[in-house]
Every structure is written in structure tokens, then in C-alpha cells.
């Protein structure tokens, strides 16, 4: 792909977990906790994991998906308030091609006995990210999905 372009995007997700802030935060702040869930899921093979959780520290996760695509996540932690928030920037590569550069913020808020997690990502999405092997989606399905995402976006705003 020779066309160079940037698309900017922001999204937010919100989840409430039936677990204390300490526990939810530990799942982001400890190597053991993060490795338990921060990966590609079924069919994903972790190739490399570096976890240096401190301001200025780096995180890397490289892995191969079932499709054979190798993704590499390289992050740098900019701001950490234990138990309250984490701010990091990261770049994402697919098969060695840089596809996006993003800023992520994660906030942990008390919600009764549990914890409300707020995740917001803002990214610069590079060159249209023409990944190989993706199924062609019908335009209607496309509209449907974007519409659903939008309703979530508006509901969360």
C-alpha cells in the first residue's frame, strides 16, 4: 500500500467488576496479573512479553494469531497513580508494519463493593491499515456494526 493517510479515532469502554480496586489495578500493574488476560485469546501464541510497569517503563507483547499474522504491541507508561489511573502510549505493528500510534488511559473508580473501569483510547490510524486475509463484510453489516458501536459511544459519553 503506497497511499499515506492518517485517520484519528477515539473510543471509550466501561466495565464494572465485582472486585476491589486493588485487585483490578493489580491485574494491570503486576506481570502475573496482566499476563492472565492481556493477550489475544484462543488461537493466539505469545512470542515475547516484556513488562516493566513504572513511569517511563516499557511493555511489549508480540504474538501470532490463528491467521498467522504477527502483532507487536510496544507501550511506554507515562503516568501511574496506583489504584487510580494508568496512562500509556503505544504503537501497534502487524507483520512488522506500523498500523497505529495510540494513547490509552485507564481509570479505576469505586462502584459499591466493586470497581468501575474506564478505558479510553485515542489513536492515529496509519495508511488505512490494509491487512491481508480479512473477510469482505457486507455494507449493511458494516453499517449495523458501526451503528451499534456508535450507540455505545453515545451511551458512554
Amino acid at each position, binding site marked *: 500500500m503506497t497511499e499515506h*493517510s*492518517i*485517520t*484519528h*479515532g*477515539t*473510543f471509550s*469502554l466501561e*466495565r464494572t*467488576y*465485582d*472486585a*476491589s480496586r*486493588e*485487585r*483490578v489495578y493489580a*491485574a494491570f500493574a503486576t506481570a502475573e*496479573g496482566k499476563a*492472565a*488476560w*492481556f493477550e489475544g*485469546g484462543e488461537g493466539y501464541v505469545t512470542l515475547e512479553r516484556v513488562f516493566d510497569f513504572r513511569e517511563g517503563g516499557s511493555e511489549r507483547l508480540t504474538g501470532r494469531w490463528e491467521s498467522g499474522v504477527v502483532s507487536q504491541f510496544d507501550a511506554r507508561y507515562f503516568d501511574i497513580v496506583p489504584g487510580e489511573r494508568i496512562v500509556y502510549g503505544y504503537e501497534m505493528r502487524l507483520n512488522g508494519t506500523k498500523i*497505529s500510534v*495510540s494513547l490509552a488511559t485507564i481509570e479505576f473508580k469505586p462502584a459499591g463493593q466493586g470497581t468501575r*473501569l474506564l*478505558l479510553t*483510547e485515542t*489513536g492515529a*490510524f496509519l495508511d*488505512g*491499515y490494509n*491487512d491481508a486475509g*480479512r473477510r469482505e*463484510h*457486507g*455494507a*449493511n453489516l*458494516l*453499517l449495523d*456494526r*458501526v*451503528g451499534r*458501536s*456508535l450507540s455505545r*459511544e*453515545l451511551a458512554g459519553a
Partner: protein
Amino acid sequence: MPAAAAPLDRVFQALSDPARRTMLERLTRGPASVSELARPLAMSLPAVVQHLAVLEASGLVATAKHGRVRTCQLQSGSLQRAEQWINDRRLAWERRLDRLGDYLARQTPQDDEGSPS
């Protein structure tokens, strides 16, 4: 700025209106004139033209004038970019946060005290 590079904010704004979504759905079946787009909508032609302007600014739709008829066409590039972004990031995160929930649920409550498990 080329229409295909319109920021996602504008795409989302364009998709936030039911009339505009109806217009887009019609365009997924092929190009249409402004009056064809207006037909199923209970609104005046000028209102339809305003909605069309929002869709055009978002890069979702391109229009071209042939004689006296303005023809509208879906620009799939913006939709694909929006869809890719949403799918690849939001859904990846949805799945991760599900796994985080499973992980937290598997832990014993004593872990709350910070004691080694």
C-alpha cells in the same frame, strides 16, 4: 483533506441520525438521486439536502451532478476505516476485558487482602 481521510468523529456524527442511516442503507444498494433518497423519508427536500451535506462532509457519501440530477454514491473507504478501527481496537479490548473479568472471578476473595495466593 481527501474525503477518505475524514476524521472518525465526522463519520460517527453522520451515522448518529436515523434519517442519514436510512439514506446510507439505500445507497448500499447502489447509487441514487437526491429525490430517490428523499422518497422514504418524511421530510422536505431541503432537509434531505442538509443531511446529504453531513454525509458528504463525513466522506461516507460522494455526490456528482449529471445534468439536472445529483447522483449520490456510497464511499466505502471511510466505512471500512471506521469499521476496522472499531473492530480491531474496541472488540479486542472487549474480549480482553471479558478475560479480565473471568480472571478476577477466578481469584479467591482473600486475594483482596493482598496476601499471596
